[in-house]
């Protein structure tokens, strides 16, 4: 049994991370949320879209009498289509994400977590239902859901390279997968194929550390994964650079190809660049999916 004191301390530590993350994510989201964008098409909603002449099949109730009174025809007042979409989010919380090459850079996980939560907040504010892949947290609306998401994001996965959860995807939902995608691409492919089967489209956001892009190493080196499950020794790291970069480029190309095939969108983001630009891209990509 955990002593009460230790339990309290750890729980307070855990709890302390949550508001900070929330606050940062809210702040980040605040920079993007310029206004609630409609769906740019007529539909169910509160906002006025357009007047159109009465057509066959429209009920009389739908006639806007005030507009129709100003002319001879009958007009129907159309409202903008506002429909809550379900968005499922997957954040890679594996050990490989807990890496930062320099002290003044955030870890990939921190960065990805911030981005994901900020995007979730934006989406929730936009009226969408946001949830996690799998069965742990189904999409819901409201501020409570953000808290739940934040809580879910703060737990770390033990394994070195996490696999995406492909279960529990609602048909025609939207998806946001954030990871470094360095792990075996098989599960990703499987997940995306499955998602495409269900009509789920979405966004793959690859978050990489600058050192993973540049490979600035030389000399005799033993490279280890964060969880130390993998290791590779080289006598001359500098010689590996070009081949490593080739492999990385190949991986990116593979992801991009996968997205193109499945109708997803792919972007790569580095931890030393502004989170805001990435968030903007994510938001537009998600929005564009609707459009």
């Amino acid at each position, binding site marked *: 049994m955990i002593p009460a004191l230790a339990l309290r301390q750890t729980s307070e530590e855990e709890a302390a991370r949550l508001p900070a993350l929330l606050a940062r994510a809210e702040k980040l989201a605040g920079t993007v949320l310029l206004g609630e964008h409609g769906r740019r098409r007529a539909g169910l909603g509160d906002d006025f879209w357009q007047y159109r002449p009465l057509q066959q099949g429209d009920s009389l109730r739908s006639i806007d009498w005030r507009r129709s009174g100003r002319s001879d025809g009958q007009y129907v007042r159309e409202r903008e289509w506002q429909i809550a979409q379900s968005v499922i989010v997957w954040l890679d919380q594996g050990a*490989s*994400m807990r*890496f930062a090459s320099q002290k003044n850079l955030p870890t*990939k996980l921190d960065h990805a977590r911030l981005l994901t939560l900020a995007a979730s907040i934006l989406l929730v504010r936009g009226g969408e239902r946001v949830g996690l892949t799998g069965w742990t947290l189904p999409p819901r609306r409201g501020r409570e859901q953000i808290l739940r998401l934040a809580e879910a994001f703060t737990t770390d996965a033990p394994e070195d*390279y996490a696999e995406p959860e492909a279960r529990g995807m609602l048909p025609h939902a939207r998806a946001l997968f954030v990871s*470094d995608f*360095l*792990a*075996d691409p098989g599960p990703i492919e499987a997940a995306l194929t499955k998602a495409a089967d269900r009509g789920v489209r979405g966004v793959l956001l690859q978050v990489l*550390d600058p*050192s*993973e892009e540049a*490979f*600035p*190493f*030389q*000399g*005799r*080196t*033993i*490279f*280890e*994964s*964060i969880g130390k499950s*993998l*290791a*590779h*020794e*080289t*006598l*001359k*790291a*500098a*010689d*590996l650079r070009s*081949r*490593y970069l080739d*492999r*990385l480029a190949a*991986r990116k190309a593979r992801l991009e190809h996968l997205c193109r095939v499945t109708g997803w969108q792919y972007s790569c983001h580095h931890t030393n660049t502004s989170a805001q630009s990435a968030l903007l891209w994510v938001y537009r990509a998600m929005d564009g999916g609707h459009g």
Partner: protein
Amino acid sequence: MTVFGALGFSAPWLLLGLLALPILWLILRAVPPAPIRRRFPGVVLLLGLKDDEQVSDRTPWWLLLLRMLAVAAVILGLAGPVLNPEPEADAAGTSPLLVLMDASWASAADWRARQDAIEALLTRAGRDDRPVALVRLSAPEAPQFQAADVWRSRLAGVLPEPWEPLAEQVTRLMSLLPDSDFDTYWLSDGLARDSRGELLATLEQRGRVTVFESPRSLYAIEPARFSDGNVALHLRRLHPGPEADISVVAQGLDPAGNPATLARASVTFATEAVTAETELSLPAELRARVTRFEVEGQRSAGAVTLPDDSLRRREVALIAGNENREGLELLSPLHYLTRALEPNADLLDGALLDILPANPDVIILADVATLSAAEQQATLDWLDSGGMLLRFAGPRLAASDVSRDSEDALMPVRLRAGGRTVGGAMSWGEPKSLAAFTPESPFAGLDVPEDVKITAQVMAQPDPNLADRVIAQLDDGTPLVTRKRVGQGQIVLFHVTANAEWSSLPLSGLFVQMLERLAVSSTPTQPEATDLEGTIWQPAVVLDAFGTPRDADTLPGVDGPALITAPLGPDLRPGLYQGEDRSLARNVVTPDTVLMAASWPARIAVEGLSRPQETPLAGWLLALAVTLLLADVIASLALSGRLRGARAAAAIVAAVMLVPMAPDQARAQDDAFALAATAEVSLAHVLTGDAQLDDLALAGLRGLTETLYFRTSVEPSEPMGVDLERDELAFFPLLYWPVTPSQPTPSDEAYAKLNTYLRSGGMILFDTRDADVASFGAASPNGRKLQQLAAPLDIPPLEPIPPDHVLTRTFYLLQDFPGRYTARDVWVEAAPPDAELIEGMPFRNLNDNVTPVVIGGNDWAAAWAMDTRGNPLVAVGRGFSGERQREIAYRFGVNLVMHVLTGNYKSDQVHVPALLDRLGQ
């Protein structure tokens, strides 16, 4: 020790370790550098990648070479390499060793090198446990065979003498030699000497003889001579050699009385020449101030020559009664005098009153009868201060009433009216000739030529003192030359004319000799021994072997003939000797001195002093190894990718910091120092090199600064440490100089700076910090060091601080000047001897200046010392009395700074009433 060429190894077997280097090469080559472990998520992408080349990943060849060099340096260093190892004495027995030194002036020039040679010899003898005796040939003593260490401690006091070993000294030494066998090291001065052969034979009977001789050429200078209005200097050297340029300087006193270099000439020895000469053109005024000529850079008595009177040209003023007889040159009263004096005297021409201020040595009045009262008075004053008035008779004097009834002040005797004429056409008798000179006469010894005839003269009245005043007379007993002393000067009257009218004396050589004897003209030649019979000459300045002038007050006088003929020795030191009316110099090198290199038989081993020093190289090699290993560290880091960004910058910065400061930075630092020192008044202490003492001095001055800040209107800034060699001193009103036996003696430039500082009103507070137990004698090491430090300083006479010194009342009224100790004696510049206490005044009217030094031993800095929070650092005394003592110490400090800054302000009698009030009187 194994010797390869100029390199020896004390542990040569360790060199076998070098054989292991190739093996090490192979091992190091096979082992790649240690890997660095990195966390890197991208490792998944690396899996399965193979390294292209296996070879290049081994340690690169240059790094291997670096390491090999480092290891080789370590092996070589540990093998104990010695450059130019001293050959081990092949006869390193335990037979005693006699170190025989010529110790003459000729060995003084490289005495330091000789001492080093002896030191090495003693070290070796100490290692071999041989008894050693040190004997100077120029001052022989019975050889005392003692342990080498005993001699080593006494070596610094073994000095050369300014003469060459005399034959009798060599004989004496031979009689003092012990009967037992011994080896001899003979430090020869390189000059040939007759006595060497016999001594060498004697020494060879006792054991091996090795001779040390300096290969350096010895320079010597002959006494300066006068030729054609210039000073001719002849130089010699011992060994003919390549062309050499040396300079000769004339040292003397500048108008302010400070020693200065008056003139400098460069002399070039032609190839293979042993003599060279130069001429110095000096104005008479400058020439009179020259005290010595020396070969620059040669510390030897032979390279110094002292000028005596022979170099002095006397100034003679010629005044005739009537000079208007145009065209009659031979009848001019001054013609013969001019001819006689011109070669070796400077002649002045003009009116008497115009000439007197120029202070000529001699004034000659030829047939001048009367002088005006003003002229007479001025002439008498000039006579009192040592002038010589030479008068010649003539028709005017004979016709005048001068000195007729009573003796004229400017006449040696009374004269009869008219004079007399003998041997003329209208008179009886033959022309008179001169009588032989009496021994008391200054002309004694001069030959009287037969053909000198006197036909007319002025006659002296027979007075009681006439006999004393006659210094030359005719054969009939009538005076020809009379003399009277006036004050320090004299009046001489020739009873004949200065031309050939009355006598043929001016035509004879005797006339010139008589003028020389009277010191009217300077003698161009050295006097003969017989000339100086019966005279005693007092040494005024003597030279030591290094050519340094020494005070000769305590030396006995020297007999005249001995001064000329005797060789230089313990009884006759080279120097300047003062006689009755002239001075004579005995110089080490004279034109007769033979400078010839000593020749030694072929069987004698002659070693030079300039043997390269034995240099152990182990330290250098090990330092090289460490440097290489450091470079290896950096290179390895760079190679393994650990040296990036900030680390590389740090490494480069560290490397740059090892490079000495650029001059620009040094100048900027100087400027910063000057700005810091001059922005406010700041106190300063002399950096002694002892970190603890320097810190304490700084803390002491900080305490004094604080005290001044709180109590007075003096608000000094932070005190500073001053490096005498580097820093400018003029910025500081007060220098605190704690004396410690270990501190280095400042260089000559630093002393020049200190003297300028003292002359321009600076003050140095010397603190021996030993409670003055030795009363500044040599009994305490600090006292000794103080004497040594202060010797080259320009310090006026000192006295213990008198109770009415202005230091006692510049701010506080003080009687004692305690620091951490309470010794009473604090020394300041002495009051002028004529300072007297005026009745009713509490203090004398003392010197105007700030005392340039205050010397004490009370460790004031310790009493003043404060940390940055104002807490005292060092305990003073006990309890309240201790605190009181500290307070008085602060007050002394305040008074001192006030004294420096305000001078004798509180000495002004204006303050008397207030001070009397405060004193409660």
